[in-house]
């Protein structure tokens, strides 16, 4: 075979390669630009308050009287802290216990089933958690308990405790999943060494696995805490909205995300600045949690080296201890075995308790939702004379999700190509880092961003603000982008290098290799990640309330206010028991959860083992 002339080979391919690389790099830099814009817009809007801390006492006063120009947010900070702490108190022991059970004790089939169920739990939209929380957990769970305790039933079980419990259920899957991964990363030799020395399973878990995995578990806790702090819909629906410091077990309150969601679009001037300042506070806190988590994850690799040092320093092996009396040894062993059995049961119980909420939620929603499932639901509008339905909201949700996907997927995949295939570029590390942080930003903060950027832009003397599908889809796309990037990057990394090398050996350029070899090979896993991201944003409510607003009619163009299904769950959830609206809400919750569950199940069935990579990106 004759070798092509060098000139003809280097010409066109070089140009194409350059353009392709520029395109991928631009996509990556766009991620940086979005993050920078997010921070800039929020700080700009909050500046009137941020720049005068002495005047407003934002964090030290509990007087939130906007009409009197008083913006003390201590009550909301307190509510956020208390609900998050309650959530952590419950979710951390349960989550770590579940992870330990799955990692060290469970048979493989149990591990698979439980992992799947946890994914289902994580996929449930927060507005559904809120609905379930107020109707089931608060009203049918806590209210009777408070009554029995002789406590004043101020809000039918709603309040700080209910909000904390709902949050704990929401963050449980994350703690469990990350802790499990971290425990799995503990070298097998450590376990075998411990068992060989006669330790029981529990002793091995307690003395070897958990200490080794501690940094990773702490990272899981930080991530979960960031999520709990930033949660909006689930909390605002169950916390009972009061503005005072309430220290009672049946106390009511409010949180930072909740007050932002309720009051941002009736606010202007300093009040808006104060609310956005709270958004900035949320952003800072969650970023700190995220960074701390990532630092801890990176540190997981280090304990091993550190653990090795004492051995090297100890030149002389210690003298063997004198043998213990036989009776003492036997008694100790018996006690250890009893403890082992008890703790095995306890860990199994943790796993059981972790999965129970899923069935409580799915079961309750199915029972309440199926009754209203009929053709009208899909073909009528809420005000139609001859039947009630949410056709417009279903259509609107599909439209918003579709537009968000159309924006986030191409951009995300290109950015991922840059991260995975141009690793030596100095921008790769910051882009990856920022994309990860973007994934941890609370949705209400992204809602503020969308509102300030597209609904009522900050930078131009606009005459007319506009709620629209564009703004809503943009907010969803910002939320979706980090997930897509991570899923796609992971997928490409899993493609064997040998395929790339073969392609290069045949004379293909980098662009050709990526487009014709790497991407096709990674496509199934990328699609998996995309569907998981779809499931996540399909149930989003908080950012859409601030950007798409909702509507009573079918959207005509993307420039119109656009209805979305979660809106009706949120809005109708508080209607009277037995009303047609609350039935619509239950049916909507059922449909939404069914879609999300089908997405997850479908993804799992289609992708098989490939879901592992994508699932991690979630």
């Amino acid at each position, binding site marked *: 075979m004759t070798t092509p002339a060098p000139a003809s080979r280097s010409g066109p391919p070089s140009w194409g390669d350059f353009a392709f690389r520029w395109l991928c790099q631009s996509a990556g830099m766009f991620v940086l630009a979005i993050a920078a814009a997010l921070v800039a817009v929020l700080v700009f809007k909050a500046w009137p308050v941020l720049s005068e801390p002495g005047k407003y006492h934002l964090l030290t006063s509990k007087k939130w009287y906007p009409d009197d120009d008083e913006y003390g947010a201590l009550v909301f900070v307190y509510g956020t802290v208390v609900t998050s702490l309650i959530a952590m108190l419950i979710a951390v022991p349960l989550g770590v216990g579940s992870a330990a059970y799955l990692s060290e004790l469970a048979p493989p089939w149990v591990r698979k089933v439980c992992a799947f169920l946890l994914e289902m739990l994580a996929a449930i939209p927060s507005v559904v958690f809120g609905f379930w929380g107020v109707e089931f957990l608060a*009203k049918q769970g806590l209210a009777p308990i408070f009554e029995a305790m002789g406590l004043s039933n101020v809000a039918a079980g*709603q309040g700080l405790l209910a909000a904390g419990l709902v949050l704990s259920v929401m963050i449980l899957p994350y703690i469990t999943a990350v802790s499990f991964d971290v425990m799995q990363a503990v070298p097998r030799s450590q376990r075998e060494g411990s068992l060989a020395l006669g330790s029981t399973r529990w002793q091995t878990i307690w003395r070897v696995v958990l200490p080794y995995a501690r940094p990773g578990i702490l990272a899981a806790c930080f991530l979960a805490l960031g999520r709990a702090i930033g949660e909006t819909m689930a909390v605002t629906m169950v916390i009972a909205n*009061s503005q005072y410091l309430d220290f009672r077990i049946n106390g009511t309150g409010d949180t930072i995300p909740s007050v932002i969601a309720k009051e941002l679009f009736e606010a202007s001037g300093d009040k808006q600045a104060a609310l956005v300042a709270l958004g900035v506070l949320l952003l800072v806190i969650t970023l700190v949690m995220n960074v701390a988590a990532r630092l801890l994850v990176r540190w997981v690799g280090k304990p091993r080296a550190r653990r090795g040092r004492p051995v090297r320093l100890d030149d002389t092996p210690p003298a063997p201890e004198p043998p213990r009396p036989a009776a003492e040894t036997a008694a100790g062993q018996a006690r250890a075995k009893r403890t082992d059995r008890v703790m095995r049961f306890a860990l199994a119980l943790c796993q059981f308790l972790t999965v129970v909420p899923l069935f409580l939620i799915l079961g309750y929603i199915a029972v309440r939702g199926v009754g209203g499932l009929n053709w009208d639901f899909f073909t009528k509008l809420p005000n139609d*004379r001859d039947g009630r339905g949410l056709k417009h909201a279903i259509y609107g949700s599909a439209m918003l999700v*579709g537009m968000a*996907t159309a924006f986030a997927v191409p951009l995300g995949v290109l950015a991922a190509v840059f991260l995975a295939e141009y690793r030596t570029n100095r921008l790769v590390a910051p882009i990856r880092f920022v994309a990860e942080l973007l994934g941890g930003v609370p949705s209400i903060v992204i809602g503020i961003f969308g509102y300030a950027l597209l*609904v009522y832009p900050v930078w131009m003397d606009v005459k007319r*603000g506009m709620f629209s599908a564009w703004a809503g889809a943009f907010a969803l796309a910002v939320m979706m982008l980090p997930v897509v990037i991570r899923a796609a990057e992971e997928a490409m990394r899993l493609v064997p290098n040998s395929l790339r090398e073969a392609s290069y050996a045949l004379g293909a350029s980098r662009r050709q290799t990526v487009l014709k070899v790497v991407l096709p090979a990674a496509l199934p896993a990328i699609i998996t990640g995309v569907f998981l991201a779809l499931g996540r944003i399909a149930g989003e409510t908080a950012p859409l309330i601030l950007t798409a607003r909702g509507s009573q009619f079918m959207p005509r163009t993307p420039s119109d206010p656009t209805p979305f299904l979660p809106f009706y769950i949120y809005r109708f959830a*508080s209607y*009277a028991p037995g009303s047609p609206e609350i039935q619509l809400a239950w049916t909507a919750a059922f449909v939404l959860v069914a879609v999300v569950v089908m997405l997850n199940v479908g993804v799992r069935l289609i992708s098989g083992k490939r879901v592992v990579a994508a699932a991690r990106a979630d």
Partner: protein
Amino acid sequence: MTRFLTFVFFVSALPIVGGCGDKKNPDGTTSGPPARISAGGSTFINPLMQKWSSEYKQNKNAEIDYVSQGSGYGIEQTTKKTIDFGCTDAPMNKDQLAKAKEAGGDVYHIPLTMGAVAVAYNVPEIAGKELKLTGEVLTDIYLRDESVKKWNAKRIADLNPGLALPDKDIVVVARAEKSGTSNIFSEYLSKASKGKFKASTKPDWVQGVTGQQGSDGVSGFVKGNSYAICYVEVEFAKKNGLATALLKNKKGAWVGPEAAAVTAAAEEALKTKQDKEPYSLHDLTYSLTDADGAKSYPISGLTYAVLFAKQPKDKGPALVEFLKWATTEGQSFTTELSYAPLPDELRAKIKEKLALVTFE
């Protein structure tokens, strides 16, 4: 890659498909899509507004897209022009008016309907029986005063001799967000308690009062929980089957939240010079609370449409047409939904006001 691109194309096509669809007239010719007016705000008026929306679309081929989010939203988003008009039960105060004028010039307040803020409650033990409350007692209930913590408190029992009130804590419910209903209610409490309670769209509720979102949230909560009490536009109480209290008016008569009693309050208010802010800031705004007249319901209110006097050419005419319809023909739907129709005198003034709207 082909599958992926197909997927993206499909989802991208959704908005295009949705945007199509001209409406076909009976004779087969095609006209443009119906005008769509975007609005939002007061939850007080929402049942009537949804009814109007349905009727207006049926008969006039125009869509009124009303999303109820509270009066605070109605005022703020009208100023920001994200909606074509807002609805509010509390007229703009001085600050809000200045801000709106800066944003788009003069603002008109157009009364749309009148209604009662009912004191609704859920006490199974006295189902079907009348409950009487005074403004002073109501104020102290909402201030969680020790003297009226329970349903069988002496001050309540004294007003209702012979009524078997239960020994249960009163569960006090208020609105969580800025609300015109809260403004009307707290304005009444302020008058009844001689300033002990301060009027506001978002009053400073004391510890022990729970906040729920929207009128439906408030009434829904009371419906679902025994021993709860709330203030809510009367239609929400009726549709949820909640009992409502009789209140003592300025003349000492016990009056329930009927439309006729609201009309009586309005007749008195129309005779009264509105010399207090924010009512004095606008041409057609009236305080109906604690009105004179033996038949007046003391917690009555008006819901206003707020709109700029200068409207865009494309949507403005449709908006004005709707408001004209709502304040004339639309009034025939008020009574069935427990609202009171606007008095003829007021309708005439509204007509004059709407004629001043300009389009540019």
